């Protein structure tokens, strides 16, 4: 996967979430976005997922610009998957329907085919026994795995994960990171915003550190974590590793 941000600025009212942000990454399977909360990771991810339009600048993924018209962006979103920090499953549907409904309504599967596919995917994530439960009846880790299954089910080109383990305890985090590795094994391109440095180091090819709306440092995962060049990165990593 190739990513290119050129002079992207994103403002929410007075607040500037990304400030003249440029980033270029080539040939990566899994890209990890790290950095302090409120630094612009989530905004970067939402822009990449076509959920929001930048105030200015251009974003390319695999050589094509993310369109600026709504129909183009809707078409783009259908080819990508997103996993949110708070799972964002639909609380009025059971796990199976959460996965199957987009297949049927967005991706043109017949009702029975969508159920069949959803059951297969849930099986892969060891969620078969929970398929008729609603999100309120599932643990955080199970919910996040359902959300990952939902993102994976339509077979998207790229999956974006926005701090998928930040709301989870260590055991659930492990089970969700395990599920994310499954996505890597399934040869999906991933962009993940995370605070899990260990996971970022071993799973990602490329890491980008974003802070205060700017790109601080980017490079191969091992290099950024072990030999950070910028003092800002060194400070951030020291804080991450000191406790």
């Amino acid at each position, binding site marked *: 996967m190739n990513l290119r941000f050129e002079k992207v600025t994103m403002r929410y009212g007075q607040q500037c979430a990304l400030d003249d942000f440029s980033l270029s990454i080539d040939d990566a399977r899994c890209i990890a976005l790290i950095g302090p909360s409120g630094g612009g990771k989530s905004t970067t991810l939402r822009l990449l997922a076509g*959920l929001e339009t930048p105030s200015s600048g251009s974003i390319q993924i695999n050589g094509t610009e993310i369109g600026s018209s709504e129909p183009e962006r809707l078409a783009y979103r259908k080819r990508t998957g997103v996993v949110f920090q708070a799972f*964002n499953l639909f609380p009025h549907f059971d796990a199976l329907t959460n996965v199957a409904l987009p297949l049927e*309504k967005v991706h043109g599967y017949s009702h029975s085919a969508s159920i069949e596919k959803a059951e297969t995917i849930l099986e892969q994530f060891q969620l078969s026994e929970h398929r008729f439960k609603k999100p309120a009846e599932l643990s955080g880790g199970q919910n996040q795995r359902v959300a990952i299954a939902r993102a994976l089910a339509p077979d998207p080109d790229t999956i974006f994960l926005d701090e998928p383990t930040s709301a989870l305890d260590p055991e659930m985090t492990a089970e969700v990171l395990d599920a994310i590795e499954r996505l890597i094994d399934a040869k999906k391109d991933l962009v993940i915003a995370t605070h899990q440095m260990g996971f970022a180091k071993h799973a990602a090819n490329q890491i980008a550190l974003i802070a205060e709306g700017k790109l601080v440092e980017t490079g191969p995962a091992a290099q950024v974590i072990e030999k950070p060049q910028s003092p800002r990165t060194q400070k951030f990593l020291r804080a991450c590793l000191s406790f």
Partner: protein
Amino acid sequence: MTPRSLFFDDESASKPPSALARAASFAIALLALSLCLFAAFYVLQYEWNWSSVFRYKAKFLKGWLATLGISSISLIFSFLVGAIATLCYRSRFLPLKYLANIYVELIRGTPLLVQIYIFFYVIANAADIQNRYLVGICIMAIFSGAYISEILRAGIEGVGRSQLLSAKAIGFSEYQTFRYVIAPQALRSSLPALAGQTANLIKDSSLLSIIAISEFTLNAQEVNAFTYSSFESFFPLAIGYLALTLPIMRLSRILEKRLRFET
């Protein structure tokens, strides 16, 4: 028993009060209220005359059924009116949005009594609607529709932003987002308030008696006049309304509880 425990729920209580304790407490509360009422009539030295009222039981039933019918049909139309007003309120076409806004504010800001007079003497006359019952149903539908519209709007606005983001990420169109994400959740969270509004509609329909619609209240007033009695027919009247509203309010409570459990 401390002064504090009189008005605050004791959250540390190990077990809820037993069924017997609750039944006895309920009986005490009911008894206290009955005593007040009894004392009031004792002071008035009122001579009860139930037998003459009892003779008109068929008339009460007829009125009660009329109220039930008017309320039911009004309820259906008020949902329709309320849903349309809500859709208009969400419209991107501004005149439509303001139309819905003005409608809701006007209805909520004026007494039903005034609305009944204006609708009956001005609008219904101008539109040449002869059937009083039709007029009554129109008035109640328009009146209750404004409140239902507010309830639905609150329900829709209560659907979290994260849900909308999620629907967008999945690739749902605006229509699909409304159909599969917003509407079911908004309707579910609105149900207790909608049930409450249904009870209000039934009670408010009593005001239709002022334009001589032969519903429950008007029939009770007529019985009072026929029998030269002053109070007797008001008691069957109150009981008749309670028979409709109590189950609905109970349903509203149950829905509320279930909702709290689900989210």
